């Protein structure tokens, strides 16, 4: 129940200062357009491998910017207020779930942008959506914990990128190779290994965040 209340609070805060979400949408749109412009009149170079690499790298950058702010807004006295009224685990679950939803929205938006600019190349939409949701969950889980570390440091955005890229490499590798299979329409047989590894990454990062977050939160 408390998790739902905290989740509601996240939505309300986001709704009240819409500029953060607007900025994020514009960021995603700009990345898509920069990529499109760089390949202008060279569209024949974009094969399955290039498409999936571009797609997930652009989503990774948007995800970094989306998640890094999730603990920055709570700076100052609100921190100690939450500390008194709620437990660390409830807060972590609310933040993680909210970030995952945000990343799924960004994923759908990137999907639309890429389909318009680069043509819709995905042969198996249902599997691609499954892959996308699992990847967003893995990214959201890992980046939320890192954002809570980065929020304690002066150059939060820089530290977030430095800490986040090596940790998210395995997620992005799985997403990219899975997307190549979705473009080629090879079906579930070619994709189950990627889905399994992503599921395992989700389980590991959620379990480890659950154990470690109280230590970050205590300060």
């Amino acid at each position, binding site marked *: 129940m408390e998790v739902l209340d905290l989740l509601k609070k996240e939505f309300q805060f986001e709704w009240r200062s819409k500029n953060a979400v607007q900025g994020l949408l514009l960021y995603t749109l700009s990345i898509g357009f920069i990529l499109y412009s760089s390949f202008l009149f060279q569209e024949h170079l974009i094969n399955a491998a290039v498409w999936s690499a571009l797609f997930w790298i652009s989503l990774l950058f948007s995800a970094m910017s989306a998640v890094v702010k999730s603990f920055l807004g709570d700076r100052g006295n609100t921190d100690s207020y939450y500390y008194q009224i709620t437990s660390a685990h409830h807060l972590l679950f609310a933040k993680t779930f909210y970030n995952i939803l945000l990343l799924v929205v960004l994923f759908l938006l990137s999907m639309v942008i890429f389909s318009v600019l680069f043509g819709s190349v995905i042969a198996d939409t249902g599997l691609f959506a499954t892959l996308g949701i699992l990847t967003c969950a893995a990214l959201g889980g*890992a980046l939320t*914990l*890192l954002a809570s*570390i980065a929020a*304690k*440091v*002066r*150059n939060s955005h820089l*530290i977030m990128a*430095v*800490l986040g*890229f*090596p*940790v*998210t*490499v*395995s997620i992005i*590798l*799985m997403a990219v190779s899975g997307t190549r299979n979705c473009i080629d329409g090879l079906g579930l047989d070619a994709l189950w*290994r990627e889905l399994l*590894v992503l599921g*395992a*990454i989700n389980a*590991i*990062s959620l379990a*480890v*965040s659950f154990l*470690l977050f109280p*230590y*970050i939160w*205590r*300060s």
Partner: protein
Amino acid sequence: MSSFLKKFWWKYLCVALLTYTTVAGLLVSVPRLAIVNETIRALYFHVPMWFGMVAMFGFSIYYSIQYLRKQDSLSDFMAAEFANTGLLLGILGILTGMLWANYTWGSPWHGDPKQNGAAIALLVYLAYFVLRGSLDNIEQRARLSAVYNIFAFAAMIPLIFVIPRLQDSMHPGSGGNPGFNVYDLDSRMRLVFYPAVIGWILLGVWVAGLQVRARQIKQHLEDV
């Protein structure tokens, strides 16, 4: 003297093992194999770096967990210095590997899954030190870096232990390439390889221990 020997026997063992593996690794005869030829001796000098690195990072994780449980500065120093020593061994492993790859694969960097995994492991520990450097509060630096150390290690499990097994590697022993298990029937190479692994791990523990003592002295001088 006997108590001295009892306490520091492992340092003598380390010197003896590394002297033995350096001499035997260069002189003892090795199986003849196409392409690999004499570079097979890299097994004695390159592969122990990775065993040493993984052991150092393992000790570092252990002390990070200890720090979160006990909140003492010694555990924090241990975690940081074992990570430092692991990083040094990892860099040496990459360099010796690149030297070897230059002669057997034709170029120093081949995008082999094991090469990429190693490079990313080093990135994680470089990020660990960037994080430590950017936190001024000693207690906060120890706690947050311990959390990152544990989390990053957990996140690397699929990268190092799962994904390389899904892809083919050009390293001897995987992807259809003969490894030393396949051709080394008389186990000659093991007689040099295992002592080398133990020797390098002992040397890593020794280096990290000296660094920790240097840190303690430095902290003591600052406190005075």
